[in-house]
């Protein structure tokens, strides 16, 4: 961040001001924390027994949260795999040379992207049984999440593929590759590493989307937390909902971290490849 073009590196006076701001902010934060803590204490929220419930297996809380967590991960994992596959297929459809295919996939993608996920989920939960299709709750959640996220992923794939230089396609065409082969061997291997950051943030959104399953009665993490609050009384809502939030944040943070690691590893391998590439002309050749 020190290389930002928006400001010069801080001089001695700027450093002093920055330090003053930091100290001021620190004092204010500490004051705020103390005030909140006193408030929480007067309400009995800091009682260690209140927080112990999150970790004590005898209360059943960790087990219920764990089950909910597994359900969330399960739904998210199935939905991620399906949404990636469907999204790629839709993207191929939108990039097709046949206009009817482009038209249909375009309408599907634009439609599903513009409808709130909750409405889609109400439809899969309540509308589809009316139309004679009864699904289990996991599938209700997964189907709605996939319908929505695959359209978003389709647009990510499409813009990633379109961002590849046109010469690549033309060169592959000139070599006589089939269109499917161009996509598989030329375009996707170049596009996917570039799309990785956007792709992961969408997968994080997908994981968060599964929390809407609580509306249709799928006992995932959020609903487990809620039923615990209903069981133990609302005075535990701070502890339980905070516990739920921490689980979500930690999981999503891990996904983002994994993506960052993947990206850096790829850049690393590319860099080492390119240096070995430059080595060749540097080695003196004796004639």
């Amino acid at each position: 961040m020190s290389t930002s073009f928006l400001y010069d590196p801080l001089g001695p006076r700027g450093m002093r001001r920055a330090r003053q701001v930091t100290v001021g902010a620190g004092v204010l934060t500490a004051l705020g924390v103390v005030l909140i803590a006193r408030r929480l204490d007067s309400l009995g929220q800091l009682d260690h027994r209140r927080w112990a419930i999150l970790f004590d297996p005898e209360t059943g809380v960790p087990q219920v949260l764990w089950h909910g967590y597994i359900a969330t991960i399960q739904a998210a994992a199935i939905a991620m795999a399906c949404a990636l596959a469907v999204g790629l297929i839709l993207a191929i459809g939108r990039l097709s040379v046949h206009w009817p295919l482009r038209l249909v996939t375009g309408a599907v993608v634009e439609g599903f992207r513009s409808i709130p996920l909750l409405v889609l989920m109400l439809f899969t939960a309540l509308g589809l049984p009316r139309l004679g299709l009864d699904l289990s709750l996991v599938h209700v959640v997964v189907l709605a999440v996939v319908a929505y996220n695959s359209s978003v992923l389709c647009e990510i794939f499409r813009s990633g593929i379109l961002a590849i230089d046109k010469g690549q396609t033309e060169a592959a065409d000139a070599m006589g590759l089939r269109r499917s082969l161009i996509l598989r061997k030329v375009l996707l291997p170049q596009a996917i590493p570039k799309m990785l950051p956007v792709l992961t943030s969408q997968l994080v959104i997908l994981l968060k989307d599964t929390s809407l399953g609580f509306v249709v009665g799928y006992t995932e993490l959020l609903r487990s937390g809620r039923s615990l609050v209903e069981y133990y009384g609302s005075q535990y809502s701070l502890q339980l909902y905070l516990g739920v939030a921490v689980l979500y944040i930690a999981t999503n943070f891990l996904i983002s971290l994994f993506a960052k690691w993947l990206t850096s590893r790829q850049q690393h391998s590319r860099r080492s490849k390119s240096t070995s590439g430059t080595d060749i002309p540097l080695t003196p050749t004796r004639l």
Partner: protein
Amino acid sequence: MHVLTDNAGLLVRASGTTLLLSLGGGALAAIIGLLVGVARMAPVPILRRTGAGYVEIIRNTPLTVAFFIIVFVLPQLGVTIASYTLAAIITLGIYTAAFVAEAVRSGVNTIGRGQAEAARALGLSFAEGMRFIIIPQALRAVVPPLASVWIALVKNTSIAAGFGVLELTASSQRIFFLDPASVVSTLLWIAAAYLVIILGSAFGFRVLENRLGVAR
């Protein structure tokens, strides 16, 4: 069709609430998001870290969990918000602000570095340079990402249905609760209402983008 005619009053009021949630949440998100976005680029390290922390935490929390915390946990701490609608607007604003901040940051990155350097050469401070030079230009580049943030916000207002706000999605639940046979047609009409709002505002944003593009 009878779903529409029988519940015309309810649906119109509910659409109004959806728009109110979107506009109120959007206004709040614009203010917080701009402040957080600028803080993320500020020369003072603690501001940068606070801004980055805000964005990271909010972006990784499901909106539903944020709703639970604002609507159910805050009253436990003695903070009560006057109405469910207001609570929903605050939640949507705080949540969407993280995405606005990201859009602002990406917009500022499109501005040529010469602009910031010229501002400094003229003796403008960081805040002045941001206010008079960088942000006015960045706002143009920020229109397309902000359009998708706005669309996401409109769709996210549907989550308020679970928290006592009678907006479009909640009104659909009320309609087919009374008349279970109409589930499919009601949901189709509600989806159509969202489509109108979203495609309409997408069109508006495209017009805005073209106009600002010419002005540049």
